Structure formats: structure tokens, C-alpha cells
């Protein structure tokens, strides 16, 4: 290991002037920001930012179109999930956060549907592989939402109903078939 040292000069060595320099910097920030904070309070200089903070729940950063938020399940025109419980997302999921229980659908044209579709967002690593694996245009992560906090782990396991209710963030929809749309444009399986 090579240690690159920098020999301190006398002034640096006695701390005092360096301390003063540091204090000057922080004081400058303090008064600069304080001035604009007060100006903002009085309604002036609104265009000058005094802080870089974003007040999260009220204010959000616009996310990228590729950004992956809370999952949503796309729906058929009748509002039922498009999911056919093929469990490919469950298979591809690297953290095993998806749990599907499949059952026979009364309609033989659909045949298989998820009785329970759960996404454990505490485990999810937001890799988006479920989106890519899905053969029927059912699971998407384009809701643009960050999962809310919960009081228990079970609160953060989103069930089928919750996921079906999610809608894509306007303008950010990645699925080719919007939720509840009529005849699907893309229909890989005739479903």
C-alpha cells in the first residue's frame, strides 16, 4: 500500500486557521441559506433554492420511464387479472418474492387462473425480470409507486386484489394492452 501524504505547513499544523477557514465556509452556507429561507417566507426570491431537500410525500422526483415501481397486474376487459398463473415470474424471480396459487378457471378458454397472487415487496429486488418473463402481458412494474411503509410484514405482501387495482403512471405505461382494455392488441396465447 502506498500512502500518499501531504506535509502540513505550519499554518495548517496549528489547526487554528484551518478551523477558521472551515467555519467560514459553513457560516457562509448558513447565512446564504438563511437569507433565502427568510426571503421565501416573505414571498421573495422563490426561484432560488435554499436547500436541495425534496419533501418526499408531497414532492417527488419525476422517475424515468424505465423506472420500476410497485407491481401491477394487467386486467382483461372484465376486470379479472390477465395472469394465467404460469408461474414464470415466480420461476424467474431471483429473490422468490412472488407466490402464486393456481386453480382451474370455469371458462375452458382461460383454463387456468391465479387464486392467490402475492408479491412480497419486502423481498423484491426490483429487477423487473417478472415483467420480462410474463408471456401474457400481465405483470408490470410501471405504477411509478414506491411501496408504502407498513406496520407488519403482512402489510407489505401485496395480494391479487391490491395488485389488480394498481394503474400505470400516466404516460409511463409499458404494457401494450392497457388495463381493462377491449380486444388486446397483443395476444401471444390467444387468451
Amino acid at each position, binding site marked *: 500500500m502506498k500512502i500518499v501524504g501531504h506535509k502540513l505547513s505550519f499554518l495548517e499544523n496549528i489547526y487554528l486557521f484551518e478551523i477558521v477557514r*472551515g*467555519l467560514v465556509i459553513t*457560516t457562509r452556507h*448558513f447565512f446564504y441559506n438563511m437569507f433565502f*429561507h427568510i426571503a421565501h417566507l416573505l414571498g421573495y426570491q422563490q426561484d432560488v433554492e435554499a*436547500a436541495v431537500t425534496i419533501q418526499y410525500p408531497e414532492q417527488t422526483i419525476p422517475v424515468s420511464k424505465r423506472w420500476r415501481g410497485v407491481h401491477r397486474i394487467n386486467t382483461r376487459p372484465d376486470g379479472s387479472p390477465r395472469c394465467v398463473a404460469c408461474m414464470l415470474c415466480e420461476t424467474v424471480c431471483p429473490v422468490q418474492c412472488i407466490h402464486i396459487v393456481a386453480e382451474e378457471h370455469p371458462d375452458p378458454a382461460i383454463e387456468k387462473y391465479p387464486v392467490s397472487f402475492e408479491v412480497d415487496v419486502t423481498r423484491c429486488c426490483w429487477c423487473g425480470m417478472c415483467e420480462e418473463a410474463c408471456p401474457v402481458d400481465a405483470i408490470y412494474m410501471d405504477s411509478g409507486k414506491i411501496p408504502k411503509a407498513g406496520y407488519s410484514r403482512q402489510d407489505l405482501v401485496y395480494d391479487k386484489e391490491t395488485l389488480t387495482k394498481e394503474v400505470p403512471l400516466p404516460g409511463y405505461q409499458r404494457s401494450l394492452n392497457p388495463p381493462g382494455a377491449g380486444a388486446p392488441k397483443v395476444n401471444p396465447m390467444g387468451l
Partner: protein
Amino acid sequence: MFIDVAITLLKIAFVFGLVLNIAGILGWAERKQSAVMQDRIGANRADILGLRLFGLFHPIADIVKVITKEDWIPPGGDKFLHTLAPFLALFTALAVFAVIPFGDTLHIAGRDIPLVIADLNVGILFVIAFGSLGIYSVVLAGWSSDNKYSLLGSMRAAAQVISYELALALSVVGVIMAYGSVELDDIARAQGQYVLGIIPYWGVIAQPLGFLIFFAAAMAETKRTPFDLPECESEIIGYFTEYSGFKFLAFWMGEFIEVIAVAGVVTTLYFGGWQVPFIDSQGFFVPGLFTIPLPHLLVVVIQVTAFILKVCFFCWFMLLVRWTLPRFRYDQLMGFGWKFLLPLAFLNVILSGVIFMSFEG
């Protein structure tokens, strides 16, 4: 007799009410100031009926939180001492305010009321004595927690406090020499003189080096950054690891009260105490030219306000320092205390002696 007691009680109420309120607000100020310094906004979420008041409710929320928390005593620890320690910390920090004068003598209704709780003739030595008693809270807290890390933390804290006490006490000697008294009231009053007719003869003018030493040592005594090794809550286990709830709050408050105490002492010793330049009991004057007489009560109010403002400034300044400077390593800390500040304090004593002697001679 009765009135004397009543007046003393009033003074106590005034001082402690002020100190405890400032200490509470300091908790908020620390968050907000650090935020403003770092281009952030800081705590502003606590609200009552949607009213946020720049986060001023946070101290209240903190207190509610802390009081409702479980007060836990380690089963292997010493119950009595574990409870005693935080209150000792509060007590020693608060006791210092007994001797700090916050205004000139008030003449009212034929009485002379010195605006200090206890006008002891040992003054500054009393401050130092209570500062040194503050170690016991640290030591007992660590020892009674039945936790070896707490114990180690308390050893470290006690070592630091003892080390810096020497430099602290020695730097005060210069002030005592300059004003010829150990009584804080006398010192404050003596700072009403002027050098060359116009410069106020404050402690910082008389003792610039002494001020720096005192301030550094006093900050080390309060155990705040850059001398916060005993605490540094985020990474090192310290003497109040095993404390929770209200007792933890007591330590926390004790720290802020110490900050105010240091600010008060620094103001009194080095920044003229309650003195306002060019205002004395006669009124506002321009040296050598003219005097505008002011009523006595107004002068006293101005002086007390000036004292409070100065204290607030030093509180602000100590927060500024805390959020500017990085922390010392432990060996650097001890080295700085023993090898730098202490010799410097000795040097300051000798230099001041020589200078004052030559001036007098």
C-alpha cells in the same frame, strides 16, 4: 428577610426557566442549524393540527416519545446509582448558573438587587468545582450499567474531562490576573472599562490566547464534536449505552445545559458579560464627547438582553463548530489536551503575568 428569599427565588426561576427553555430549543436548533448549514431543510414534520412552525414541535414530540419509552435498568446493574447518574449530570450542569451574573445591580424600590443568584466570592472557582464534579455522573453511569463497553466508555469520557479540566482552569488564571478578582460579578463589571478610550476592555481583548484555550477546553468538557468521543452515538458504545427513556433525556438535556453554561461563562469571562459597549448606568455615551441619559430600568433590560443574546450567539457558535469540524481520534484528543493546550495555558499564564506586571510597573 422574606422579600430576600422571594427575590432569590424569582431570580432562580428566571435563570432556570431561561436555561431550560434554551436547552429545549437547542435540540431543535441543532437540527435546523445543521440542516441550513448543509443545504437541507431539517426536521419539519411534527405538526399540531397541520401547523408545523418550522419543526418547533419536534422537541415536544421528542419529550413525549422519550417519556413514554420503557425505562430500563440492566438487571446486573446498580439500580440506585444507575438512576442517580443522569440527575447528577443535570444537577452539576445547572448549578453553574448560580454564579453567572446576568445583569448589573438593579436598583428598585430602594433595594440593590445584584442580578446573580448567588454572589459567591469564589466565583469562577465554583464553576470549575462543579465542572469537576460532573465527572461522577459519567463514571457512575458507566459503572452502574453492568456493561463492559459502558464502563470503557465512561473511562474514556472521564479521562477526557479530567485532561481538559487542567487547561480550562489554567486559562482562567489569565482572566483573574487581568481583572484582579475571581468573582464573576467583578469580572463582568471590570469589563466596562475601555482601552485607548474606545475599545471595550473585554476578556477577549485582554486574553486572546486564553479565550481560545478556554473555549477549546470548555467544548471538550461538554463532550461535543470535535471532542465527542465519549458519545458519538452513531458508532461508538459510550457510557449511556444502557440508558433509555427519561434518564437518557436527562443526559441529553445535561449536554445542552452544559453548552449554555459554557456559553454563559465564556460571555462573562471574555465577552463583557452583560456589558454593552458605550452604555453604562448613566446611559448611552460616546467616549469623550457626550452622554445621552437613559432610565435605569431600560439600561438593565438592555444589559440583560445583551447577555442573553451573547449566550445565544455562543450557543449558535458551538453548534456551528460541532457541525463543521470532524472528530479527533482518541490519541489526538489526549495529545491535543496534554501536549498542546496545557503548555499553551502555562505559557499564557506566564505571558499574562509578565505583561500585566510590565503595564503596572
